[in-house]
């Protein structure tokens, strides 16, 4: 997809994220809006995965470590045909598989996540398996900046470079906010690039809402042969809805009817031009 097509997709994805969060009366709104452009580029331009190839041993894997922004994943998977979008009408309802964190009972989901700090270890194991079997698939995992103090991330980061997993790409959705406030004030993880570089990773910064920059970054993988790659995606929590942007309260805030209409009024095809 070209940049314009991706931008149109992202507007539609944002409208769907809000639609189903409003219907479910639950969801992680701010983070879903900050990571959706990354997912958009991954699923539409990068991953060699589809409903038809999901059982293939050599498919690319995507593991969403920040499982709480599952609404972003659901709308993209629905768009890619893994399940009918109407399934999302059941989001968070009694006996629905479409719960508030990814589970493998939903078509297209690779791993059950939700507890933070798990995705990178799972991805290291998955990427290591490709190396052991000389398979060419790649593994992508999306981390939140707020989950990085979980120590298991750093155990996994060490091992990824130890085994030279250049088929592994971690993306940090660095929106800078978590429930208690700015991530830099809760537990500062900066300078993140230097930390991962010290752990043996090759690191790049991108604007996490710039489709061209994201595409170029993914096209450049691995950033260095023999090293795992980290993309630090600078994002805006609540991106695309003016009154949600950079507001902590929208971490898991659910719009009321009036706010929802106001958000939809902003999420128009014209918005795509400015994304």
């Amino acid at each position, binding site marked *: 997809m070209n940049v314009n097509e991706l931008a149109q997709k992202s507007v539609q994805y944002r409208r769907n994220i809000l639609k189903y969060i409003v219907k479910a009366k639950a969801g992680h709104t701010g983070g879903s809006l900050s990571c959706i452009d990354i997912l958009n580029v991954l699923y539409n331009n990068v991953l060699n995965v589809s409903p038809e190839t999901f059982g293939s*041993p050599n498919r690319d894997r995507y593991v969403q470590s920040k499982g709480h922004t599952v609404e972003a994943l659901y709308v993209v998977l629905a768009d890619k045909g893994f399940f009918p979008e109407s399934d999302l009408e059941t989001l968070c309802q009694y006996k629905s598989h479409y719960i508030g964190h990814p*589970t*493998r009972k939903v078509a297209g989901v*690779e*791993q*059950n*996540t*939700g*507890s933070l*700090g*798990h995705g*990178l*270890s*799972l*991805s*290291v*194991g*998955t*990427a*290591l*398996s*490709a190396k*052991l*079997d000389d398979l060419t698939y790649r593994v992508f995992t999306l981390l939140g900046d707020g989950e990085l103090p979980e*120590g*298991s991330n750093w*155990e*996994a980061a*060490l*091992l990824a470079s*130890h085994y030279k997993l250049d088929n592994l790409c971690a993306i940090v959705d660095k929106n800078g906010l978590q429930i208690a406030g700015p991530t830099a004030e809760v537990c500062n993880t900066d300078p993140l690039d230097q930390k991962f570089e010290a752990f043996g990773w090759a690191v790049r910064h991108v604007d996490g809402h710039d489709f061209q920059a994201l595409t170029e970054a993914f096209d450049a993988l691995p950033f260095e042969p023999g090293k795992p790659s980290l993309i630090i995606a600078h994002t805006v929590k609540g991106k695309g809805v003016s009154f949600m942007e950079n507001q902590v309260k929208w971490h898991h805030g659910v719009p009321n009817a009036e706010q929802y209409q106001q958000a939809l009024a902003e999420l128009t095809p014209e918005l795509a031009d400015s994304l």
Partner: protein
Amino acid sequence: MGEVTAVLSNSTAQANLDVFSSTLQTLAETDRNLLVVTSDSRGSGKLVPFAQKFPKQLVEIGIAEQNLVGVAAGLASTGKNVFAVSPACFLTARSFEQIKTDVAYSNNPVRLVGISAGVSYGALGSTHHSLHDFAALRAVNNLTIVVPADNFETEQAIRQAAQSATPVYLRFGKKPMPLLSDENRDFTFGKGRIIQEGDDVVLIATGETVYPALQASRQLETVHGIHAMVISMHTIKPLDYELLANVASKGCPILTVEEHSVFGGLGEACASFLLQNGFRNRFKIMGIPDEYTVTGSQVEIMNHYGLSENGIANEVLTIL
């Protein structure tokens, strides 16, 4: 007192871990997907010969148990036949959430192997004891918990774990394990093994406590004419309810014996079933009490808490 005559010779008894290592080597000959994943524990897991013979099938993680289990789950998700090996104390506590989420909930069929379990590490102290693992792991859905009691059960457990489509936790002790029975060669997950028949009292033990239970039964028979049934309840979960109901229906007292806290282990699992199904047999749980564990070697600790031939025999005399 307590000379064991009927139990087979101990001269060939191997430590579980030696059987583990040799069985894995046999399996790896024909299964290139079999991987052993360790956290600097290849030495304590007796896996050095495996590593030398199959260097590409041993994945070293370093001392990082959370990562050990997470990586093992990732490997298993791609179809690898993964044995994740680490001391039971760390494996089931440090990485409990990875077991719960990445292995059990995600149904990545890792074969978790907790080595030197219970109080095997003796005087190294409580940091190295695992007296909580049954209790913690029993409450996790989609996890089979198996504790072999001799070399035969160990080999069978490894072979069955290697075939399992769902996650398994294998709990191994450290010391040599005398063969319990040459007659009963049935071993299936979820099916307790009757090692010795008896009508006066039922001893339900698991892992390294089965042998002292068997010794106690010989003593009781020789000295007191008491006939004790001895069961190796190697599978803690799913528990063999059918066998439990059968033996409880005899009406005789039941003693459970485990190298685990008296809270949440084999004994309470049995008690829960029996009470909820109308059985009112006299019942006693033998295990490690809820206190700062006495210091000493494994044998000293077990003796201190009565998890020994004499301790079990005395308890039977008390309950009868």
